[in-house]
């Protein structure tokens, strides 16, 4: 039953290989979808190109359905699955700041790596900028340490918060996602005509 203690099962080198392969597939898929191109990424925020929304939501929901079917039939132990702890306000404030960074910079950390790997100069400048941002955080976090550790709701899942069964939450998200993307596409074509492809 997954997950596995990789370094215990296949050794340290084996574990690192798996992570390399996973990263490789991640980078390959992202670049193939166009995520190395800042113009494509930014177009999302003008509703001109919905690739970002489509890829992200599809990925999250396909993964969720697969994950929760695996836990349902005993392939995966949800107790051992890493669920990001919810630090509500640092997450929201950080998210807003990242949104600003996204529309100014045209990338997010993962996609900037993809862009940099194909020698996009703007991506390389972005990575340099994020280095400065990360270092500044390390130096300044002590000033607002209390905030950074605030609103820790722990391992809070949507199903626990909404007090609904897991399956219902997943189904609801899938239904909402399908509607949003379908309608979103119609809106996009209405604004920009059929010349925009995605």
């Amino acid at each position, binding site marked *: *039953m997954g997950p596995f*203690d990789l370094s215990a099962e296949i050794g340290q080198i084996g574990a690192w290989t798996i992570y390399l392969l996973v990263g490789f597939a991640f980078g390959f898929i992202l670049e193939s979808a166009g995520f190395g191109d800042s113009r494509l990424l930014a177009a999302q925020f003008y509703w001109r190109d919905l690739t970002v929304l489509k890829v992200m939501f599809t990925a999250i*929901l396909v993964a969720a359905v697969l994950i929760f079917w695996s836990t349902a039939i005993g392939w995966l*132990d*949800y*107790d051992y699955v890493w669920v*990001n702890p919810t630090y509500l306000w640092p997450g929201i404030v950080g998210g807003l700041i990242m949104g600003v960074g996204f529309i100014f910079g045209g990338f997010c950390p993962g996609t900037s790596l993809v862009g940099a790997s194909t020698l996009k100069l703007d991506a390389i400048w972005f990575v340099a900028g994020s280095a400065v941002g990360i270092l500044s955080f390390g130096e300044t976090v002590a000033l607002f340490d209390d905030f950074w550790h605030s609103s820790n709701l722990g391992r809070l899942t949507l199903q626990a918060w909404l007090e609904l069964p*897991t*399956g219902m939450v997943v189904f609801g998200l899938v239904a909402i996602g399908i509607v949003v993307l379908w309608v979103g596409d119609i809106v996009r074509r209405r604004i920009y005509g059929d010349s925009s492809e995605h």
Partner: protein
Amino acid sequence: MTPVSIKHLHGLGATVLLLASAGLVWHGQPTPSEKWGFLAHELEPRLIERQVQIDPAELAELMRNNFIDLQLIDVRDERDWNLFHLWGAQRIPTQDLPAQHKRFAALPDNGVIVLVGNDEARATEAWKLIMATASQPNAYILAGGINRWLAEFAPGHHGRSVLAREQVNDTLRYPVKMAMGSRHPAALPDTHHVKDLSFTSKVKLQKRMVMKGGCG
């Protein structure tokens, strides 16, 4: 591929995903006993080979061990609890155990749970439940339960003959004269009482698989 085909693929994919998630609603996530079902082949042998049932003497020693974070969980009825229970124990009926899973899962590496019943049947059910719902903490069962504990540590020896005669049915059969809870001298046996007893030490602090993740 003409555009029409891609659109059909999208529609098909969306339908499949919707049906699959509807299936999740129907199937549901595993109940604790179903969860045990998945783990049984791995964990049942530990019960059968008696790797997790510890002698009263070993528990008595654990109770005085300052390096172990001992969680004594008594799963008996309130009446039996009031008659006698171990010093430092908490009474948690079996059905309330899954709700405590966060606490048990978050036990430190030196945390040890010992489940206590009158005999072993109820404690074993509780053990299975905890292993299935709390990420397999270091959990053990008191071999022979309270009945055996009292037979070994309570003053006087008349209890042993009583127990030898009667059936094992998870009731408190040791004759307890007054309800003393944990004020009974056997609730925390003296060290000299324990030292003479030999036992096979079974408690091992397993290094549990740590959930690691997150962006660094």
